[in-house]
């Protein structure tokens, strides 16, 4: 997995790619654009490979509305719904820069859009351990549990991602 971060005046753009041996050609996984000021989501794109071709899920966020578009070999679907409270994108949690925000989540629930479901779910982040350099939080969403370890100091980099039920155990290394 390769993550790319691009910083512009008012946006943070994350891109992730898969590298599947032996050919090592990067395959698009997700693209996510955040508002740099308050880390609110602006655009989220997710590519899924199936035997018939490619599925693209796109969520376009505005202050009061989310527009979801699904393009697939079977056809296209589009929907939109109004939002009355801050909604985070499913992808956002994995790249959450502001740990202050994560700590403030505590045991509180917050709304997370899972674009593939076209529905908003309750997410919860709970700090479970900390050492000198990092925090580990337990993140639960739609019946799934993911353990995320963040750097304590700015830029609050995500260090590890463990999803025992999915069989993931990722250690993220910086490659400048």
């Amino acid at each position: 997995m390769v993550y790319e971060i691009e910083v512009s005046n008012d946006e943070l753009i994350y891109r992730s790619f898969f590298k599947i041996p032996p050919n090592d050609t990067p395959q698009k996984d997700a693209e996510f654009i955040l508002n740099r000021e308050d880390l609110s989501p602006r655009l989220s794109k997710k590519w899924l490979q199936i035997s018939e071709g490619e599925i693209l899920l796109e969520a376009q966020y505005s202050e009061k509305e989310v527009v979801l578009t699904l393009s697939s070999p079977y056809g296209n679907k589009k929907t939109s719904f109004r939002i009355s409270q801050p909604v985070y994108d499913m992808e956002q949690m994995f790249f959450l820069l502001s740990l202050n925000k994560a700590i403030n989540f505590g045991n509180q629930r917050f709304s997370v859009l899972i674009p593939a479901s076209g529905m908003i779910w309750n997410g919860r982040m709970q700090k479970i351990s900390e050492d000198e350099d990092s925090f580990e939080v337990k993140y639960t969403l739609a019946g799934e549990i993911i353990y995320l370890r963040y750097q304590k100091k700015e830029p609050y980099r995500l260090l590890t991602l463990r999803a025992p039920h999915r069989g993931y155990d990722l250690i993220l290394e910086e490659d400048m």
Partner: protein
Amino acid sequence: MIYLSPIITLVILIFLFSVLFFRKRKIAFMHNGLTYCIPLVLIMIIPYHQLERLLLNTMAGLWPVFSINTIITFIEISLLYIAITSLTRKEKIIDLNLFPIYLLIGLGMGSGHFLRDVILVWYHPLSGYFGYSQFSSFITGFYLAQEVFQALLFVVSAGFIGLGCIRMAKGQSLLGIASLIYAFIIIEIDSIIRVLFQYVPSFSFFASVYVISLLPLLSILGSAFLWYSYRRQERRESELKKDDSETSPTS
């Protein structure tokens, strides 16, 4: 055509069922129609997906999800049991002649399950959520196959519940309870498989073989075992009748 395919599938399913089980039986259209439609409507009006979503919003992990799935299976089996026992009360008899009607109740519930899931995917503006983090956005051949096999599991389960009720009414309590447990297990195995491939990484390969091998295998084995149990019960009853006629005084 894609929108007609679920209806065509359901019509074929009902036709095959009628040919198999109602060939020699006089069909009372209104009576059997109601027997089929009531469980169909019953399962469609349960807010199954909303209930599952509510529970998944509060619990996470293998065991809580396993419990959620068991609760939902229990609700479905209870509905089948209620439908079967109310028919028995209405008919005021309970014997093996009612067996095809029990299967018809199962087909009604299976069809309701099928229609509920298909309509959800059909009309949902983006994706139909159908449990354990699985989403489907379009009605595909694989999706229809999965729904048909799941409907068949309801037929098998209803058969076991019917046999269980017959056995209990005839004083074979242990065998009756065992049949009710089989009815539960047949639906629960399917749910457990789906939970396992979502939550246990070493079982994730199940996902790729679920529709093409696991579901058909479960339906075939379940049907074969139901058929064996039915024949065994039939033999047992004919033996009992024979014994009764031999011991009863003749004029």
